[in-house]
């Protein structure tokens, strides 16, 4: 999205305070400049020649987690998150991105194709399931990959990983490098097309959204007929079909569920993770004070944890408090980035696990 395309949103948001109270970054930092209104005012000042792009100004836009809660809380659902993305794109064009963004983008551009290590099977042609681990899970959270592999292996389905799994482009897109993101997406789409699986299953909501929603928007096509599913959806289907057999042990205490913004608000997947938790634990998860479409961000959204780690930590602390308020002892989420952010915030005070880990623990052996 170009800045010119965001003009109506800028105009709508620049004087409006109505969603500010809900913005997780605002709640954590109390800064006006990181809210939709602040962004609208900054872009108005820049557009009117009263303020130049600087790294400080650009930095404000990178403190947004793109969680979309402002948009959800807005009665008219103005596209505040798209406005932020457009501003980031402009900052990239103007050459004013903060150093931390430059470093993060360089790291994402420097793809290290991954072949699942020695332990994971390669996906053969026309396999039932291609498991797409995603760059963050495979590089930072291998335990989630291992748990997912255990769960998949328990199903008796033919599954594997790509011989050289690339990146979906989501990270670069969120940082304002749209053209580079589309190139990464194209490479990944080619890799997937070569295998031609029946379904792509990923535990990463960012990959999930890219494949389902952003690839088509970028003109990147997957072969027709390939289903794209989040792990929660796929394992849920398997459970319904009697192929995911669980041990029935109920030993997780008070289990709560944190909705990842990308899976929930952006992609509308709210029920599948809850149903799977119910299947595993025998009861519906404890809802946090704000859940579903109104769930606050964990702070890790839009690579904030890479470029503004302090802000990300402060946002995570607020979200974790919601779990504490609800008396949760095991907080389940369905995104590796949410899990990492909340785990750090919890500092051992409560258990934070990915849904795949919860399932793997309870797979019947």
């Amino acid at each position: 999205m170009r800045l010119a395309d965001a003009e109506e949103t800028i105009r709508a948001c620049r004087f409006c305070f109505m969603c500010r109270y809900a913005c997780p970054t605002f709640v954590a930092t109390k800064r006006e400049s990181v809210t939709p209104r602040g962004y609208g005012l900054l872009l108005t000042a820049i557009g009117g020649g009263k303020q130049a792009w600087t790294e400080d100004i650009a930095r404000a836009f990178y403190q947004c987690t793109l969680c979309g809660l402002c948009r959800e809380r807005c009665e008219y659902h103005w596209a505040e998150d798209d406005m932020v993305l457009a501003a980031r794109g402009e900052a990239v064009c103007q050459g004013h991105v903060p150093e931390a963004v430059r470093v993060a983008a360089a790291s994402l551009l420097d793809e290290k194709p991954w072949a699942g290590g020695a332990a994971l099977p390669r996906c053969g042609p026309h396999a039932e399931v291609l498991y797409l681990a995603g760059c963050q899970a495979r590089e930072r959270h291998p335990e989630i990959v291992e748990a997912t592999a255990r769960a998949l292996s328990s199903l008796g389905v033919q599954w594997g990983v790509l011989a050289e799994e690339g990146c979906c482009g989501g990270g670069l897109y969120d940082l304002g490098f749209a053209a580079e993101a589309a190139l990464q997406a194209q490479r990944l789409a080619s890799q997937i097309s070569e295998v031609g699986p029946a379904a792509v299953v990923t535990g990463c909501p960012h990959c999930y959204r890219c494949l389902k929603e952003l690839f088509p928007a970028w003109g990147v096509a997957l072969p027709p007929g390939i289903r794209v599913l989040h792990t929660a959806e796929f394992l849920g289907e398997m459970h319904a079909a009697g192929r995911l057999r669980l041990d029935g042990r109920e030993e997780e205490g008070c289990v709560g569920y944190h909705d990842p913004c990308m899976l929930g608000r952006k992609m509308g997947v709210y029920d599948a993770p809850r149903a799977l938790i119910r299947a595993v634990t025998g009861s519906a998860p404890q809802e946090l004070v704000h859940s579903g479409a109104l769930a606050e961000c964990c702070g890790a959204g839009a690579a904030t944890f890479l470029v503004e780690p302090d802000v990300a930590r402060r946002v995570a602390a607020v979200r974790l408090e919601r779990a504490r308020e609800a008396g949760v002892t095991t907080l389940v989420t369905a995104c590796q980035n949410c899990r990492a952010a909340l785990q750090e915030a919890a500092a051992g005070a409560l258990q934070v696990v990915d849904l795949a880990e919860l399932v793997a623990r309870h797979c019947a052996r």
Partner: protein
Amino acid sequence: MNLHQAILEQELESIVGPEHVVTEPAEMVAQAADVWWITRFLLASDIELPRPLAIVYPADKEQVIRLVRFCNEHKVALIPRGGGAGDSGGAVPLTGGIVVDMKRMDKVLELNEKSLTVRVQPGILHADLEEYVNRRGYTTNHLPASLTTSALGGFISTNGTGVLSSKYGKISDMVHQLEVVLPDGRLFRSLPVRLHSTGPDYSRLFFGAEGTLGVITEALVKIHPLPEKRAFRTFLLPRLREGIEAGRVIMIQGLAPSLLRLYDEQDTHKILRGQYGLGVEGCCLLLGFDGLERLVDVSLDVATEILLASGAQDLGPELTQNWWDNRYRSYYPPNDYIYYPWMTAVMDTVAPYEKLEAIYWAMKSAVEEGFREWHAEFHAHFSHWYDWGASFYPSFVIKEYPSDPRQALRLYNQVLDRALRTSLEGGGVINEHHGIGLRMGRLMKEAYGEQYELARVLKRALDPNNIMNPGKLGLGE
């Protein structure tokens, strides 16, 4: 950065910590404008809005005390800021200085479920406080349009009013105890109950003071159980006169409606025809009761009898229920007037019943006849009722005005002055719970006459160095 600025930042950082002192332009730009038309309008002009030397975010009252002492010793202006969503430039740093943003002080300190109070820091946005008490079965019953946008400290500082005020009062009726850091850094805490006879209730000084007499650091706020029932009904009165009289009778009978909103013919037409497609004319009255079901039912019955006897037509509950359910919707763009560049201002006025209608018509004429060449519009509704009078909420709108900023500002102030002077001449009282600030400071002396000298004496006594939010409330000297 010059030496002065460097030393200032160092001193402020030693009080609140380096991460809580902001001098970067991003935050300065984001805080420059409030809801006041003039700040919004000037953003697009060649006139620069004032910026502070720094914005600081204290964590507790001890830090506020140190900040105030520092500013007082060095004669630096200190501008307390809550939600920053005022309508009158109340938090605009007119002379620079330090903006003390209170939003880190947003904690609920104590909930008393016996006496039904909640002790709160002033930086809490009211939606958060309301949600906190709602989750425990209570409500503050302070539900203004700015619920999500404004902080408790801001409500106290403008003596704000919510849509249920006819039953529950203004914020000054809802706060038992107030704690304020005075301009020399001393801490003032009022007595723990509001209704006492231990001399004057000195806390009253700070309601509506807009930060000119100190920084609020804590408040003990009244709460109520969530109502067992809310009931709504809509009536159509033949004219404003019958509507005002019916409202008066309802109030003096002690029926205590929580919601009583009477719209003039123009706004009625807009609402009923524009939003609901009803081809009726008159003055629309939205009525609501809340509380125990039996009391709600009987109150609504009696109020209905009064209204029908006044010639009202009963339009049923749906329209008012719909208004209640969607009452915040009109404040989101593109519904809200701030979305448009229109010149506009609210001019809340309160008056005793015998003067109310005459003031309304005189203000309407002052705006619409007085500024006919600008096609000035005057809209109003009566929304805060008492047993001695009522407050109405007029606003003017001019959609096309001079492009030259100086001429536009002149026109804006001419409309405002003429309308409010008309009200004052008719015995009305300015009731600007959106803030007096810079917008109407010049009218304070006219509103009070010679009595305003007391305000000056108090200001000089408490704040001899004039550091506290200088220039607001007409205390410009």
